[in-house]
């Protein structure tokens, strides 16, 4: 019964999330691309940041949802929570890829390289690999209950591992090569702060909306599968 209440709640609120997200994203894009001035050092390239940073934040939020959902699933064994995890992982891959690609495009003119062994870059690459491994693991398991349980275990291991990856790369880098990159900006000007926070809020809302829609889709798919299975077994037994 919890599942149907949960799904009904999602259906009730999803349009609100979509509308608000649309509002914030258009405000963010307008202030970011039109109103705000080009950066003193980076020029027009800085505008990629208004896409890149919010996507990276939202990708981490997606993994946090995935982690919390996995703990919840292992505790309560509620299939609809597993559907939510499945949804969050797929959308997490999308957001992580966008963050990595926009980061690369920004890094080329700014740092003059597509890729560098920066702790944040490596952690995001590992995050992407974990999420892809997660979906692959799911696709290879046939029993839905086992699929949910095993993939939840993987998510928890990955969540514990990511900070260690981050620290080990940080150590490794600081010992091996001088820091060629200083973190950007001393403090952020308010003309940059507005588009950044609008985009951030907008993408968090978009993330929530996408997870809500995808969760319902996966829930219905599983329901359909179960009903088809029941129909088939009825045909066979009669």
């Amino acid at each position: 019964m919890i599942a149907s209440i949960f799904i009904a709640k999602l259906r009730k609120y999803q349009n609100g999330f979509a509308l608000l997200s649309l509002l914030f994203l258009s405000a963010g894009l307008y202030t970011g691309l039109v109103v705000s001035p080009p950066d003193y050092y980076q020029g027009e390239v800085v505008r990629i940041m208004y896409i890149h940073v919010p996507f990276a934040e939202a990708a981490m939020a997606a993994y946090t949802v995935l982690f919390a959902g996995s703990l919840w699933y292992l505790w309560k064994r509620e299939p609809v929570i597993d559907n939510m995890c499945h949804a969050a992982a797929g959308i997490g891959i999308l957001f992580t890829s966008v963050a990595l690609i926009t980061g690369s495009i920004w890094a080329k003119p700014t740092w003059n390289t597509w890729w560098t062994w920066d702790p944040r870059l490596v952690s995001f690459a590992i995050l992407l690999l974990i999420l892809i491994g997660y979906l692959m693991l799911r696709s290879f398991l046939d029993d839905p209950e086992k699929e949910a349980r095993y993939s939840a275990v993987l998510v928890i291991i990955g969540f514990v591992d990511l900070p260690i990856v981050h620290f080990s790369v940080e150590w490794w880098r600081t010992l091996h090569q001088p820091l060629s990159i200083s973190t950007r900006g001393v403090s952020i000007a308010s003309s940059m702060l507005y588009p950044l926070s609008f985009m951030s809020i907008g993408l968090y809302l978009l993330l929530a909306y996408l997870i809500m829609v995808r969760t319902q889709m996966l829930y219905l798919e599983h329901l359909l599968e179960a009903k088809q299975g029941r129909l088939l077994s009825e045909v066979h037994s009669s």
Partner: protein
Amino acid sequence: MNFFKVIRWMVWKDLVSEIRNRENISSMFFFAFAVILIFSFSFSMDARSSRELMPGIIWVAFGFTGIIGLGKSFLPEVQNDCMEYLQMAPVSKGAIYLGKFAGNVLFLLAVEIILFPLFILFFNLDVLDKLPMVLLIFLLATIGLSALGTLFSALTVQIRAREVMFPILLLPLAVPVFIGAVESTRGALNGDPLALYGHWLELLAIFDMIFMIVAFWLFEFILDE
């Protein structure tokens, strides 16, 4: 049965079956031997570049060997339908994990110790006085690899495409082990003072502890039916 007795029996059972058929250790050994041969063909090294590349070569070889060995560690249980019995056994699931894990550490460490003289032979290393430190690094890194590997082996053993999924899951998560192992091996082989690379040993030890605890706890959910 009490906790430590379960661990002891698991290790003893794996050791006996390994001694009888010698499948796991010999396949790991000959695979790693082939890898070392390929490496010695691929790089023609003088003393200086050998110092640069050696730690990486050692840990690529050991990492792949570990994948071969660890990935199969639950396979005999599935082939003989023993998985169900392990699930039904009225003992702590964590003890089953620790038993399997201890067996894996023993096998992998044994292979590494047999292989290391081959590195000395092929790459002309001068290491005799540094052996204790190198062995300590091998032990710490092997514990870290096995802690993750044993859990993922149980996770992937019953699925299709087991051989592909195991390294895909293990390798990204084992990044800290590889960085720590390579850097500390480099320090040890160069004969640096411990203060210069000691923090990498700490990283390995911390990784080992965290993942032994997390995997010990999560293993219950894998064997749970």
